[in-house]
């Protein structure tokens, strides 16, 4: 990448945005950062779609005052990205509404706590205990040592 032409820069931007978005979703625990990660990921994907038939110096595909430009840009990715952006907006609005309700119900926006409380709620509804092997090892001090020692010395 010695000569950074426009193509390389644009592709780095598109893939970079996608990578940043994915890292936000995968690494972060805070719900707002995850939603921002989704927004960035979608922006990167939209940019990638626009770049698919990018040609430097092409004019907009519009006929103004009867002049037809020599080289017109591709209208199809523009229409596709228009659709994709609107879909992204709808989903983001939905995500924020759900986040508001989740915060109201569980009192937190930390995804680990939300998942823990969700698990507790499901288990309580079903009438079963929480799965015991969550993250901490069993409490060793609870096993009574005396009985084990007595049995060994007895036999």
């Amino acid at each position, binding site marked *: 990448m010695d000569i950074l032409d426009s193509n390389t820069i644009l592709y780095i931007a598109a893939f970079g945005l996608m*990578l940043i978005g994915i890292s936000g979703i995968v690494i972060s625990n805070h719900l707002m950062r995850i939603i921002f990660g989704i927004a960035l990921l979608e922006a990167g994907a939209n940019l990638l779609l626009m770049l698919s*038939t990018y040609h430097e110096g092409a004019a907009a595909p*519009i006929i103004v005052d009867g002049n037809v430009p020599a080289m017109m840009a*591709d*209208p199809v990715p523009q229409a596709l990205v228009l659709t994709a952006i609107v879909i992204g907006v709808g989903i983001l609005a939905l995500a924020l509404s759900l986040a508001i*309700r989740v*915060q109201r119900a569980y009192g937190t926006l930390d995804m680990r706590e939300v998942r823990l409380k969700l698990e507790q709620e499901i288990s309580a509804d079903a009438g079963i205990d929480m799965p015991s092997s969550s993250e901490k090892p069993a409490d060793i001090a609870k096993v009574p040592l005396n009985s084990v020692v007595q049995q060994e010395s007895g036999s």
Partner: protein
Amino acid sequence: MRRFTAALFLLGLGVMIAAIYQHIDFSNTAVNAGQAINAVAAEETGAANFVTSVVLAYRGIDTLLELTILFTAAMIGGMVLGRRRVDAPRDPDAGFILRTGADLLFPLLLVVGLYIILHGHLTPGGGFQGGVILAAAFFLPLLARPGITLIDQRVVSLVEGLAGATFISIGLLAMFDGKEFLTPLLDKGELGALISAGTLPILYLAVGIKVGSELAGLLAHLAEAEALD
């Protein structure tokens, strides 16, 4: 541990993306569907803006589905957020600059939005872009004076339902004429005139009104949702 695996995953992803990038063929000989559309769009649809002809004519069904996604998202957002309690505390009015600015900008934004919607087949823009500006026009007074109820949700749902039904009905009308669903009808007119491109401006008007009313309703719902303490 989790961060380490996540970092490893991202590193692997980065390497894969670099490999893909090496293999992308940048010859771009322009043999694609878009250029084929550019060649024939002016005669087949009569719209000077070829992106509009793709959005409304060649890929009209995608636009219909996009409208449906917005409709569904707004409906679910309303369902999830529920109604505000009557005695819930409201935010105070905004400062002088925002209040005056909102009052001044409201009619201007309406005009700009409608202009962009109506000229969608001639200049860059169209129903979606203009509809978002219309929604922003209705949102400014909500920001300036949170107490007022500018938008009646029942009117919003009526308008968006009828606008969406108009879009589908125009599509179905083509079927009565013996053609396929969503074939553009009416006279194509003169390229570049305001009244041209047959049913395309009407479709975009329906789209613009629907998007504007939906987003305005959704924003009003989000604004009305009780503040989180």
